[in-house]
């Protein structure tokens, strides 16, 4: 039996690249097929029926037709356009970071339903929480979990003994926490506070609703951000570009501050 010529998918638009006169190659993360690239013909034209529907980070229902190289998006209906996210500089930048992470960590043709649901929830929570950074940290930790990189945070990854309160270390290379006795000056490992360990363990085991109620000091929040950033950079072997932009937005405006505008 031959496979059908057209098929449907629930998708979140990750990114798009212009090709030719008015077409776009759209990268989608779908519930059914994982990451896939498809062509949206004529999407750059103002009158296009596809244009507005295949904008990142839209959640949409797409109809695709098998193509010779790339499949072609024939119809698209937006289920959630995340208008609140698109209307706020911080939120739109956070969504850009989330989408870049998904694009960087996934390969085409490997469906992952929990990851799709996590991505959709992260975008929804970003919209509801007005860009709370916890959404990003929770997303990072669970993204890694769904991809097989869940960090070991209860026992030492080397000697397997339970971690004691006090000085412990986090080693991106070993994929988890090290007790003080097992940290032999590995160049990627960094000290981790007991509070950071506790928060990460809670994030690993609880849903976002519970996690969002935890209040953190800015010091702890910054420690967790740096820790996750280092772990992600180690796994990807490169920096996530949107992260630098988020840092810039947090600390002030590069361009504006040069010109006396803050």
């Amino acid at each position, binding site marked *: 039996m031959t496979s059908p010529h057209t098929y449907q998918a629930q998708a979140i638009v990750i*990114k*798009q690249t212009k090709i*030719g006169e008015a077409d776009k190659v759209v990268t989608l993360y779908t519930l059914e097929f994982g990451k896939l690239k498809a062509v949206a013909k004529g999407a750059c034209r*103002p*009158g296009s*029926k596809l*244009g*507005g*529907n295949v*904008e*990142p*980070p*839209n959640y949409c229902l797409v109809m695709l037709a098998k193509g010779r190289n790339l499949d072609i998006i024939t119809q698209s209906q*937006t289920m959630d*356009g995340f*208008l609140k996210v*698109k*209307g*706020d*500089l911080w939120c*739109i*930048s956070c969504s*850009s*970071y989330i*989408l*870049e992470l998904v*694009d960087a960590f996934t390969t085409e043709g490997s469906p992952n339903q929990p990851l799709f649901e996590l991505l959709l929830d992260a975008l929804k929570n970003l919209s509801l929480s007005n860009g709370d950074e916890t959404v990003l940290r929770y997303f990072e930790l669970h993204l890694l979990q769904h991809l097989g990189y869940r960090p070991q945070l209860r026992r030492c990854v080397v000697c397997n003994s339970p971690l004691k309160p006090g000085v412990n270390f986090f080693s991106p290379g070993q994929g988890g926490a090290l007790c003080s006795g097992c940290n032999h000056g590995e160049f990627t490992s960094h000290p981790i506070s007991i509070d950071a360990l506790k928060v990460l363990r809670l994030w690993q085991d609880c849903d976002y609703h519970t996690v969002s109620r935890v209040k953190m000091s800015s010091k702890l929040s910054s420690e967790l951000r740096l820790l996750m950033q280092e772990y992600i950079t180690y796994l990807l072997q490169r920096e996530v*570009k*949107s992260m*630098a*932009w*988020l840092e*810039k937005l947090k600390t002030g*405006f*590069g*361009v*504006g501050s*040069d*010109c006396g*505008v*803050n």
Partner: protein
Amino acid sequence: MSFFAEPIANLIQEFSKLPGIGPKSAQRLVYYLLRNSNEEAKALAEAILELKEKIRLCSICFNITDCDPCVICQDKERDHSKICVVEKPSDVLPLERTGKYQGMYHVLHGAINPSQGIVPEQLRINELLSRLQDGSVSEVILATNPNMEGETTALYLYRILEPLGIHITRLARGLPFGGELEYADDVTLAQALESRREF
């Protein structure tokens, strides 16, 4: 081994580098030029050279021009108190074609795209801020593209321009002429409703 004489192979290779031109199209163009007179080939070569020699960026608006300042920036009849900010030089042309805008332009040469590493420092944003320092500009129109990068750029510009006390506007969003309501996406329709106006 190449089946073509060296000059033909070279030109085919050069034409193939152009956007939308594959090896077959490049061959057709080369054979067309071979059939043409020497004068026409010379005129084409000179036009290409002239393009590279004479075209530069206007020192005020950063649009591409053959004279500095460009024709628009030199025009005393135009309204110098309005600046329309666009992403690329090709965005100026459709706005000019409308015949509805008589102000100045500022070309950013790109849009903020964090995931591609394109940040404000790579755009002509500092130059825009310098243009606004003397207080002669009363309105800045943000005409970035209605997509994720364009939105990010517009929101960023709004944040840094707002403290300057300049009137900041942006192009209206809504349904395209000739389009159908049934096929409009949620974002466009929501924005069309928000920006509705008196009949």
